[in-house]
């Protein structure tokens, strides 16, 4: 399987942002994309099926992105899942907190599609080879 077969979970409480991210990913060739509105359903999804990458907002009405990150990292079964934070919380203190809790990469909104796709490639490239997609490119 190629990297473009990676299963990606998009978590954002804003529907237009979920739509936009999905379209960016689809245009880049990613096909297995699921999305949800906050950390609670996101955690259920990650525990119920193969997810190769989580892209999550920080501030959401329910479980926030940083809470989701902590719960994922604390879980033995899903703890290695690559996690990309995509947020308006660009303050240094927020970045530091996310990296302290094991985020794979951190992108501030607003973002260029190219920057998001490059970050995804980097994170998938660095991920533990357990999910079946090749690291050798498309």
């Amino acid at each position: 399987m190629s990297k473009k077969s990676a299963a990606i979970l998009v978590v954002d409480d804003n529907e237009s942002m979920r739509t936009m991210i999905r379209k960016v990913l689809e245009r880049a060739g990613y096909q297995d994309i699921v999305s949800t509105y906050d950390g609670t359903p996101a955690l259920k999804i990650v525990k119920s099926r193969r997810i190769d990458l989580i892209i999550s907002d920080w501030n959401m009405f329910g479980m926030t992105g940083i809470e989701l990150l902590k719960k994922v990292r604390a879980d033995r079964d899903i703890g290695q899942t690559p996690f990309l934070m995509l947020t308006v919380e660009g303050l240094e203190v927020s970045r530091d907190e996310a990296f302290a809790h094991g985020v794979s990469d951190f992108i501030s909104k607003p973002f260029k599609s190219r920057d998001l796709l490059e970050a995804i490639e980097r994170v998938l490239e660095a991920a533990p080879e357990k999910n079946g997609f090749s690291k050798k490119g498309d």
Partner: protein
Amino acid sequence: MDVKHINAFIDSTVNVIKTMAFVDPIAGKPYVKTDNTAHGDVTGIIGLTGSMRGSLAVTFTEGCIRKIVSNMLGEEFTSITDEIKDAVGEITNMISGDARKRLQYEGLTITAAIPTVVSGKGHVISHVLSGPSVIIPFSTDNGSFVVDVCIV
């Protein structure tokens, strides 16, 4: 309000609209507004606390926001839909976040609430504070919008 603070909101607005929607907004001269009527058809409002407190509102005319969201989502919109309102909330959120990041370099730590969206002709903007606000007008090829900052 300090000019440096107004500049942070101008720069953030241009950055967000240009980066997310490929539209180049031109900033006009800021002025003080004393009433609460919106200068457009749909508004995103977000509360700010910390080193500065108050709220930020971003009000778009219909033609302007239809073009911006059409570019963001890659599909044409012919009216103000729920998807457009949702995008206005996120644009407001991003302008607030980008401005807070810039103001951090001025030594100000500001946190933001989750945005709300109001729409309709002649709708009213309810800022957190009751005082006058500073309006920064912007023009685009598809219409105008304003950033309305009411902070102390």
